[in-house]
Every structure is written in C-alpha cells, then in structure tokens.
C-alpha cells in the first residue's frame, strides 16, 4: 500500500482509541492466478458494531461488507481484506482474530496506544492449517519522499 493509505489507517486507529477500529481494504479485482503482491488501493472505514467491549472486540456486520462490495464494484475494485487495531496491544492477530478469519482475504492489524501507532502487520489465513501466517507489508512511498525509502520492505 502507499504511505498515504497507511497514514489513513493509522489516523483511524488513533481516532477510535481506546476502541478497536475496523475497516475494509480495497484492491483491484483478484484473479485466481494472481500470485504477486496484492495492492491495497484504498481504505474504507467501518463502524465497530461489536456488542462486546469495543476496546477488545470488533465486528463488521455482513450487511456492511455487502454494501461496500456493491459500492466499489462499478469501479472494478473489490474488498480484498480488512484492518483493525489493537489498543495497547501488539500488532499480532489473536486467537479470536484467527477464528473469525477467512482464507484469501488480507488482514492488517495495527497496534495503537495513546501516543502512537507503533506497529502495523499483515496476515493471511493459511487454508490448510487454518492458522495465520504473516505476509510482507510493503509501503510504497509517493515520489515526493526521498528515493532511499522507495519500494523496500517496511513495517512502519
């Protein structure tokens, strides 16, 4: 994803603190043969509608996902994954996150505390083991930033 998209995500996490924020990762339509890195083109915020304590739980109802899919479809895009934050907790998916995850989707978790968003990481669910494995999250900087940081692996 671009630095701008990452910033948006971090801002959402900060704003939602101390609750978990959640939202959609929007990418281009995914083809079955696509093995290359998945591009996250944009974000869309979702409301955390968990009935539980929203500092430790999040829920995006199916209806919201459905509506979001319909919204982005005309521009050839699709929902490729979801992001959510862990207030005062590392950017590692929990058992609960894993239980609720689906293969094929990308999951980004942010760690957020009152001062900062110190960590962001991406994961996908392995369909065979049903366990999360971490995937590389590359932040592609816009041309305005110094060339030394372009394109490299970064976990900002």
């Amino acid at each position, binding site marked *: 994803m671009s630095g701008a998209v990452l910033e948006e995500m971090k801002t959402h996490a900060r704003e939602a603190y101390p609750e978990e924020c959640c939202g959609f990762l929007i990418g281009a339509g995914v083809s079955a043969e696509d093995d290359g890195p998945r591009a996250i083109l944009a974000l869309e915020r979702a409301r955390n509608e968990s009935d539980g*304590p929203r500092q*430790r739980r999040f829920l*995006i109802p199916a209806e919201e996902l459905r509506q979001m899919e319909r919204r982005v479809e005309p521009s050839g895009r*699709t929902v490729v994954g979801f992001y959510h934050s862990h207030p005062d907790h590392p950017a590692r998916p929990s058992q609960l996150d894993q239980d609720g995850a*689906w293969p*094929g989707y990308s999951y980004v978790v942010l760690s957020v505390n009152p001062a900062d968003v110190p960590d962001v990481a991406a994961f996908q669910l392995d369909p065979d083991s049903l366990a999360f494995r971490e995937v590389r999250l590359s932040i592609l900087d816009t041309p305005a930033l110094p060339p030394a940081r372009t394109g490299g692996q970064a976990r900002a």
Partner: protein
Amino acid sequence: MAKAAVKVPAPLRGFAGGASEVVLEGSTVGEVVRALARANPALERHLFTAEGRLRTSVTIYLNDQDIRFLGREGAPLKDGDIVSIVPAIAGGAPAPRRKAPHGRPRPNAKSSRERAFSREELSRYSRHLSLPEIGVAGQRKLRRAKVLLVGAGGLGAPAALYLAAAGVGEIGLVDFDSVELSNLQRQVLYTTSDVGRPKIERAKERVEALNPGTRVVPYPQRLTAQNALDILRPYDVIVDGSDNFPTRYLVNDAAVLLRKPDVYGSVFRFEGQLSVFDAERGPCYRCLYPEPPPPELVPSCAEAGVLGVLPGLIGILQATETLKILLGRGTSMVGRLLLFDALGLEFRELKVRKNPRCVLCSPRASQKGLIDYPAFCGVPDPAAGPSERVVPQVEPEALRAELRSHEPPFVVDVRGRGEWEIGHLPAAHLIPKEELSERLDEIPRGAKLVLYCRTGVRSTAATRLLLDRGFENVRVLRGGINAWAERVDRSLPQY
C-alpha cells in the same frame, strides 16, 4: 429443483475453483450452499460448523434479502435466483497478559481493560457515582453507550444536553434545518446569534462544550428509507424527536427491523406524549397507530402552536427513559403511553398492547422492510423536489397586483384566530379551515377566490374542499402568508 447462481466474493474465488459465480442446482438455499461447500472443502469449514449447521458468522443473501427473514436455509429457490455469501468479520485483541496458562481470561478482564475514569470525570459525574443504582459500573455503561437523536429541535435540544451531561459517550444528531427565530421560543440549545446557522453545527458545539467526553456525530440530512437503516444501526437507543408523521413511522420501522428501542415523545399545543417502543418487549408505534391521520387533519407545531416549555419537559423525559434503558434500571415505559396536559398539570397513563396483527412487529408481520413514508402518510414528499401541484396557485406579487386592480379577488384566510392576530392580508376574510364547510355561504360563488394559510398546506387542502363543493376559480397563495411577508409586505412578521 432450481438453478441458482452462487456469488463468491473475490478473495475466496481461489477456493471455489476460480469462479466468481457458481451455478448450482437445488430446491432450497441450504442445498446449494451445501453443494458449494462439498465441492470446495476449503470453504466448507468456514461455512458450516462441525455439526453441519450454517455458521452464524456467515450471512447468506437470496437476491437482496438476508435469508434470516426468508426461512433461513429452507428458503426456496427459483431459477435464476442469486445466492450471495457474505462473511461477518469479527475479532479482537487477546485477553490481558495476566491470564491463566491455558488461555482463559480472568473474570474481571473486561473492566480492567477499559480505560479508567480520569479524576476530572470522577468529579464531573460524582452526583451519579454516589447513587448505588448507578455507581462507576453504571457510569461506564453510559460512556460506552451510543444514542441517536432524530431531530435537534424542541424535543432533541433538551434531550441532547441532558444526555451529554449524564455522560453518554456518543450522541448522533439527525437534523437538516437551520436555526430560525421562531425556534428560540423553545429550542434552548440555540441562541439569538445562531439564527441562520445549521442546527447540527451549533448543537455539536454546545453539547461538546458542555461535555467534551461526549462525541457528537452529525447527520445534517433528511432521514429517508434509503439511509435510515445505515444511520440507525450503530446506535443502542433511538430517541425520536421528529415533528412529522412520515419520519415517526420511518424511525419506528427502522428501529423494529434493527431491534432497537425507540424512545418516543411528541407535543402539540398544551399536550405531550411519551412512550418507549421496543418490539422485542412490547408494542411498536404501529401497534398504537396503525395508520397515520390524513394530513389535512394534522397541523404541524408551527401551525397549531405549542407551549414553549412543553417540549422541554417531554424531551427531558425522553432523556430519562434513555438513561434507564442504558443503565438497566427502573420500570420501563414499554407498553405504557404517558399523556401530559400542561394546563391542568396532569399526567395520565394508558396501557398499550402489542397488536397481534401488527404488520411490522407481530409474528404475522407482512412488512419486512422500509416503505415509502410520505406516500403512506399522504403527504407530498418534500425530498422529491418541486412536485406538481394539483391545485391552481398564485404568486404573492401577482396577488398584490390583482388586489390593486378593478376586480380584486375575494381572499380567505383559513388559519386560526391567534395566527390572524399575528398579522393578516388586508381585506382578507378569516374563516378557519375547521369551520369552512359550515360557513360556505359566506364565500361568494362566481367570484375569484384566493385562499391562504401560513405556508400553503392548509389552504391547499381547503381549496380542494371548495373545488369539491363546486366552487370555481379558486387558487392558493403559493408559500402562504410567510411568502407574502417575505416578498411583498415586510411589515408582516413571518412565523
């Protein structure tokens, strides 16, 4: 057996053979989803539990409807139906580190994870905290709560202030109006210098100034059947402070469909009403009023008038009921309709029962979604833009010219006496609309007639009545006396 197309979300296509749509045969939704799962084991465990039941974390849509409302997996299929699979996405941070080795969180983990109240908050809410029925636990419930106020006017203004004062964490406000001078007789959230400003903007300022811990989410728009479900969904309690029937029915219906309580308040002249509609526990608004009254019989507050303090009282009662719901304390107003008469200062109560045939909330409910509310209530939809008027009209400037001519029209004011005394057109005749049918002989047949009221609603209905009774050449002053005061005679007050 029918052939249905099962739509697979893009990221899952790799697990469904690469296709975005799979055509399968079956007679029910359950059958085709099972067929999909059998053919694609990677999806099976996400769709079904070990016991073979459809997981609750997956929502299945048949065409555009959630199968929950169609008989779940038993919903029958027709050829060409589209079944969509939509996962619910949930998760959460792991339990706090001080957990037992086998991974179960401690029983008090919930309260230790939530942000503690600051010293300032403890001071602010001290009067709540000393009540055993509230205490820190109750105050936390309020802080976690989200309340949506539909309308930031006479009822919404006091409710918003008091709910924020009480420490409700988030308040949504739906209102698209701007502050008018005539609002200040009762809408105490606003000041004289706010006249002309959008209400929501100012309300947010005032509420957040009172309590910075309350987040105000503005919705400066009209609530419609297209946006109501999305707007209401995130909130715990809905407070209906609207001023018209289409919105009342819309709010009720959306709240019933979303399973949320609707705290209802209304005012009219010197009378107020209060109740809580919660279809899970009792009647809904439609159980009480299955049909709206014909629009001509219902003047708005603007036309009928209202004692300024009345919405203040009812609005605070609405806030009271909201707090009781959030705290889980006290005896609810569900199933009870409070009637208040300000002149006698009397409170009366009626029992309201759930209607076993209610089209919305009974087991035999036929209405599954939102409908066209303006049509239901028989009013022209203001959101639909300028609609074609059925009755002939005359613009204020044209009427002025006609009044100066050799053959001025006969002008009838159909408002009430009190409004007449605020100001009226010269040479007009006062025949209040309610008295019109008995006083038809006072109106010369064959003359050019012009009827007016405040903005045109009553006079339009009155004109139709005259036309039905055989009068010809009847027109409505477009925009009523308010438009006349604005454009022709600025010495008259608008109200």
